[in-house]
Structures are given as structure tokens and as C-alpha cells.
């Protein structure tokens, strides 16, 4: 099993979710995060003093998937989250050791 963790632009969430559902991903977990990277922050002025907000709001979308879905899933995210502008984010892939569904105690693939 694989664990996909994608950092995306927040307004792409709906597209990404739709794309993932389409390829057969059954569940996902989303976290609000702040990202720092090549995309630069914007300048704010508060009462005359300027400052840069370096961190940009991003979403982290995580999904556990069976190995065979890896390729399709990555392409799906890639396409759905793409704008071509800097700051689009990244997809990270991890090995997932085990997975259990709390409700049923199913484990492994059945629990995804």
C-alpha cells in the first residue's frame, strides 16, 4: 500500500477530490497547512509598517491507496491541481506499512 501526500493550492480542492474519486480512491484526509517555497509571499502593510507574509495557505491532501492505483492517482492529482503557475505544490509518496478500519477491524486493502 502507498500513502500519497499532496500539497495543493486551496481552491483546487474540489477538482482534486473529484479526480481522486474518479480513479477509485475511496477516502482522503485534508489538512490546512502553510507552505514556504519558491512562490514568494505577499507584502502587507499594517499601520505604515511593511512586512512580508512568507507562508502561503495550502492544503495537504492525504490518501492511502493500493499499490496498483499509484500511477493513476498521481496523474489524477497532477492534472487536477495543475495551474502552471508557481506554487502549485508537490506530491509525496510513502510506503504504508499497515492500515486498519476502526469500525470493522478490517485490515490492509479492505480497510482503504
Amino acid at each position, binding site marked *: 500500500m502507498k500513502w500519497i501526500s499532496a500539497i495543493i493550492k486551496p*481552491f483546487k480542492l474540489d477538482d482534486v477530490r473529484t479526480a481522486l474519486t474518479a480513479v477509485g480512491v475511496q477516502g482522503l484526509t*485534508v489538512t490546512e497547512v502553510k507552505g514556504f517555497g519558491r512562490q514568494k509571499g505577499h507584502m*502587507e*502593510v499594517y499601520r505604515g509598517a511593511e512586512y512580508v507574509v512568507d507562508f502561503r495557505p495550502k492544503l495537504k491532501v492525504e490518501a492511502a491507496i493500493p499499490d496498483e492505483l499509484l500511477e493513476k492517482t498521481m496523474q489524477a492529482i497532477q492534472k487536477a491541481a495543475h495551474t502552471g503557475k508557481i506554487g502549485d505544490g508537490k506530491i509525496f509518496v510513502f510506503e504504508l506499512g499497515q492500515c486498519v478500519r476502526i469500525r470493522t477491524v478490517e485490515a490492509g486493502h479492505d480497510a482503504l
Partner: protein
Amino acid sequence: MGDIVVEQLLELSYALDTFYFLMSGMLVMWMAAGFTMLESGLVRSKNTVEILTKNVGLYSIACIMYLLVGYNIMYGESSSPFFPGISFLVSGDNTVADVLSGGKDAPYYSNIADFFFQVVFVATAMSIISGAVAERMKLWSFFMFAVILTGVIYPIEGYWTWGGGFLDALGYSDYAGSGIVHLAGASAALAAVLLLGPRKGKYGPGGQINPIPGANLPLATLGTFILWMGWFGFNGGSELKVSDIESANAVAMVFANTNMAAAAGVVAGLITAQLLFGKADLTMGLNGALAGLVAITAGPDTPSMLLASIIGAVGGVLVVFSIVTLDKLHIDDPVGAISVHGVVGVWGLLAVLLSNEDATLIGQLAGIVCIFAFVFIASLMVWLILKKTVGIRVDEEMEYQGMDLVECGLEAYPEFTGAAVGK
């Protein structure tokens, strides 16, 4: 000695009426805070600073423009019933001698108090607009429009009735301005919304309606209560006199009816929402209160309290249907201003016929049509010019990012909001 006593009576009565005007004006000024809180509660957090700025700014612009030219257009000399005259700044106050001259036309309260009371009305008309165009209109274009509306458009149509123009002659009856203030504001708002288009994401590709919930409903509720309170000044002060028994009774009637109409509007709005949607939608209760208030504003002095309640309740039902209908027509009005002040304003003007024998259907319809047509068309032209020149809408990326950072460089709640998920 008799003379001195009579003079002192005049002095006291002048003082009481002036004080009453000032208290009323103070309450109407407070409505600016009400609109501000209402609107800032009903937009998303990323557009909150901008709506705050617009509201504080528009009130200020209204005061300045009305002082410079608006008051004189509305209440100055003119030989035509359609075209008001023009002159600048507001002249001084009544002399003691004039007041004590005691004839029928002797002034019975301070001229400057009158200006103060009138100026806060202008701001109300303009406040109506800011809610409807929220979350997408450029700040400085909005302010430019405010200059024109409060300095020229409102004073002209106000002159037609309150300045003694042709609508007054036609018998158009509009006690505190369901039409002159509220419908006028809503007409200008409608023109703006039609040119602006809906907020991005409000209507889906298949035409479906995506709700965009307001970020802070306690503020919206507070705003409604402030407006309710301020309305006692808005309607109560429009009797223009309190210093004798009949006037005092009339003012009392106006207070009580204003309160009852709002209360009935809340109940009607909540029940309608519960029946239609299966939920007691608070925002409909709040819009119901405002609808009740707008509905009674055209004639709060003549109905009984029961009738006032009914007029308010009809307003409360109407506003729910109107909001839902406008949404289906893809007219995107984030706070429901066009429904509350426009649709219900019309209802209020017609409801005058229920209890005021002096009002005529012809007169009321004339007022509705003339005010709507003039303000709508004049505003549309101004908005169009702004659109072609400086532009009226921020670009899509800015809209997504939020008006606050782009226009004001600030966040309303910098510590609280992340990127809202699933909203």
C-alpha cells in the same frame, strides 16, 4: 409679563424640538454602525476589512457631499418641480428674533439640527448599496459612486417629495422614506449588481446555486439590533415635531409601530424559513426584522399596532421569497439588500393605502415608478462610466485572494482563518 412667558414657551418648545431632532439624528447615525456590522458578518472573512472600510468611508463621504451641495439641492430654492436648484454649503441657524416672531412660518427648531438629521439619512441610502456589491467591487470606484449618489442623485429625487417637488404635488406619501431612501438605495444597488455580475463561484456551471456563508453571524445579528434601534430615530424623528400633545402622541405611535413591524417581520421570516427549508434560518429572521422596518417606514403614523404588525409580517414573508427568487435569477446580492430595501420598500409604499386616507394608489405608484426609474437609470449610467474608465470589479485572482489584502493590505481576523476546507 405675558409676552415674556409666551417667548419663554417658544424658547422651551424650540429647545425640546431641537433636542428631539438631535437625538433622532444620533440614532440614525448609529445605523451606519448597524449596516457595517450586518454586512461584515455576512461576507467571507477575506472580504471583511474591505466592507468595513467601504462603510466607514461611505458614511463620511455622504456627510461631506451633502454638506457641500446635497442639502441645498434637496431643500434649496427652485422654480421647477422637477429640477432642483443648486447652491453650496449650509447657511447659519435661525436667529432668536425669527423664532420669537411667532408666526405660522416661524422656525420652531434648529436649522443645523435639521441638517444633521437629514445628512444621516443620505448615508443610509448609500449603506444599502455596499452590501449588495460586496466581495467583488473595487473600493475606490465604490467611493466615486458614493460621491455622485449622495451629492446629486439622492438629493434630486429627495427634492421631488421632501423638497416640495412634483411627487409631493402628486400626493405621493412616504413618511420616512421607504421609497425615497430605501427603494432608492436598492435601485442603485440593482444597477450595480447587474453590471458587476455574481461573485465567482456563486453559481455553478450547471446553474446551481452555491451558498457562500457569512463569516460571523453574531456580528450580523448585532448589526440588525443596531439598525432596529436606530430606526426609532429614523422613523421617530420624521414626525419632525414632538413638542405638543398631538405630535408627542404621533411620535409615540411611530415608535410603537416601528417596533411591532420589526417584531412581526422576525416571526414571519423565521416561520417562513422553517416551513420552506425545514430550518429556522437566522439570516432570514434578521432580514425579516429589516423587512418589517422598511415596510412600516412609508407610513408608521397611521396604522394601529395590529395593522403595523401585519404590514411587518407581510414584509417578513416577502423578503424570504424575494431572496430565493433573486438567487434563482442569478442576481447575486450577498446580504439581501435589494430584497429588503427594494422589494419590501415597494410593499411598504403600497401598504400606506391601508390606513392613510390621504394617500392614493396613483400617487404611490407614481412615486415608486419615478424613484426607481430615475435612480436606476442615473446609477446605471454612472456605474457604466466607472466601468469603462477605472473599472468596477477586481480581477479574478484578486477576488479569489480576497479584497482585504488587495485593497486594504490587512486581514480582518489574521489569527483565525486558514484556507477554509470544504466551504
